[in-house]
């Protein structure tokens, strides 16, 4: 932890050199740290959406969970509105930071009615004056996410995936947070429902001015919703840039290959575009390659890549890339 680090007051959320290691038992006695997130730094402005993409197992969810302190980070600094987030301060910040979960089937308690699920954050923070006030708040939240008021007394299993995700979003909005982590919030839904839910996220952002950390593996979705995008590979950020800039001009070879894998709606352009297919598998996070983690699969890998980890450097216009190739 860097106690001297000065957060930039312009940012709502600032993450500096976040490290999250999980001990994994190897052999009889030894434990090896699994570096799920290793030196991740980024910042989010109020009302902004940062998309976090990467393949499964690269540590996206870990970063999201460490950010709202579901995990205690091994090292690094997290600031919210210029305040350091730690065990002491988190209690007061819970209201302002919320999370929408990936699986709409396991994120709602099957024994609670919709009213109680959405009302739980209100109960915890005692944010109502009377029973009637509580009910009014819940009903207005339900209306905000497009649920009927008559569904309030129903149980979660009576709803479809999209409706369940709306309930989860209403719960996240209950305390009027300034920041929401959307952990693969649309990945479990089918495409048409995804579109509805994403549009709802955008509407809510316009209405309420919330900032999102939007974690996903679908680049098209992330491009659509995000102002800026961060690309993650094996626990490290490899490239961050404005959404359009990243799409038009990817610099890191990993981002290039990710973008080339995005399916295009027009079959003619799809035919002419070249896919960059990566060789080999993702290395085990327990046995990270030396230097740049991507070098084992990189087309441009040189000797320097094996020796030293490239740092995120600005290539102009806030386009940060961690790669030795210029």
């Amino acid at each position, binding site marked *: 932890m860097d106690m001297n680090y000065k957060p930039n007051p312009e940012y709502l959320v600032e993450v500096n050199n976040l490290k999250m290691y999980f001990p994994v038992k190897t052999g009889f006695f030894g434990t090896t740290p699994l570096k799920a997130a290793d030196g991740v730094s980024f910042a989010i402005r109020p009302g902004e959406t940062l998309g976090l993409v990467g393949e499964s197992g690269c540590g996206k969810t870990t970063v999201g*969970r460490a950010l*709202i302190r*579901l995990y205690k980070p091994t090292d690094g600094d997290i600031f919210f509105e210029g305040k350091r987030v730690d065990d002491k301060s988190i*209690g007061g910040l*819970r*209201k302002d*930071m*919320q*999370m929408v*979960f*990936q*699986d709409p089937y*396991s*994120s*709602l*308690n*099957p*024994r*609670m009615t919709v009213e109680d*699920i959405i009302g*739980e*954050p209100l109960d*915890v*923070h005692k944010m109502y004056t009377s029973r009637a006030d509580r009910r009014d708040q819940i009903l207005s939240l339900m209306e905000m996410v497009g649920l009927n008021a008559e569904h309030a*007394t*129903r*149980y979660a299993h*009576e709803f479809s995936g999209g409706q369940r995700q709306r309930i*989860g979003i209403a*719960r996240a909005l209950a*305390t009027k947070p300034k920041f929401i982590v959307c952990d693969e919030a649309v990945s479990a839904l089918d495409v048409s429902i995804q579109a509805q839910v994403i549009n709802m996220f955008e509407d809510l952002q316009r209405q309420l001015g919330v900032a999102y950390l939007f974690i996903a593996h679908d680049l098209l979705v992330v491009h659509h919703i995000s102002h800026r995008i961060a690309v993650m590979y094996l626990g490290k950020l490899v490239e961050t840039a404005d959404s359009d800039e990243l799409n038009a001009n990817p610099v890191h070879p990993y981002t290039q290959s990710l973008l080339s894998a995005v399916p295009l709606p027009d079959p003619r352009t799809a035919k002419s575009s070249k896919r960059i297919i990566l060789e080999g598998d993702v290395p085990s996070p327990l046995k990270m390659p030396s230097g740049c983690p991507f070098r084992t699969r990189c087309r441009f890998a040189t000797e320097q890549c094996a020796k030293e980890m490239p740092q995120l450097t600005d290539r102009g216009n806030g386009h940060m890339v961690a790669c030795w190739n210029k």
Partner: protein
Amino acid sequence: MDKTYDIDQMPKKNPLSMQIDLSKFEKATDEEKKQADVMSESTSFFKDGMRKLRKNPLAMFSIVVLVLIILMITIVPVVVPYSYSDIITINGKRDKSATNMAPFQYSKLEQQYIDEGGKVFPHIMGTDELGRDYFVRVAYGTRISLLVGVFASVIVLIIGVLYGSIAGYFGGKVDLIMMRIVDVIYSLPDLLMIILLSVVLNEVLKFDGQGILARLGTNMISLFIVFGLLYWVGMARLVRGQILTIKQNEYVLAAQVSGAKSSRIIRRHILPNCISVIIISAALQIPSAIFTESFLSFISLGVKAPMPSLGSLASAARSGITTYTYKLIFPALMIGLITLAFNLLGDGLRDAFDPKLRR
């Protein structure tokens, strides 16, 4: 083909055409549309489970049997004018001839009394070797056995649920240490513990007077203590396992993100989701406790005489098994009925409420 069709009017199909019959795809009327909007009646988990339980004939039958047994043991000692510990008396005189009678048989003195116009309550199950009414003794024995079963399973429930939920929820080192203690307790031979404890308690505790504890005797107290000390480990393991799986669900994380405290999360999210498994296991614990009690009474480590229990009644009947078979049949039948009913009820509860078996 310049003819245009109204959207609500289907074109007529050529009978030879392979085209799909469009008349099968008529637009839904407003009434039909409304039908799709109506959702089925909202049911809670509990209501749904009760509906399933009511459809299970075996479970319902065992509930009826258990209710009848409970009614019997509460009413019989009030209605029948004999006591479980006293020899039958006629006109204030002890009837020494009224021993080992068959069901509904009267002794000479009683017959004489009836002939003189007196009224004698029939001995529905006969009498035992000391001339005590067997029906009352069986009713009292059932009372004791049921009491032991329910009480033991309540002890197991409380300790096991508390211990298991703490170990499962906090995990890590806490869990490791708590579960190793469970392993140690699990490895102790329970019968040996009961025997040793009852010997020690006999010396330490001396119950005088007429309290229920004194009448039950130290063997029973040691049985309860042993249940409290040893038998909760199975329940603790079960609860811990349940909580470990439920803890992984995202709704628990969501509650943590909301800032809910551990006690609230256990109370509102974790326990309601494993309560069905706990209740089922507690229901199945009752017959096993009754069985243990009967077994201990059978080897004369159970209740103190003259208090009967089903096991001690069966044990006493063993000596005259060839001549007075009915004296073994009645308590054995009661043990069988109770354990069978509780087991069937527990199975029925599991079928109705266990989330793993649903859907």
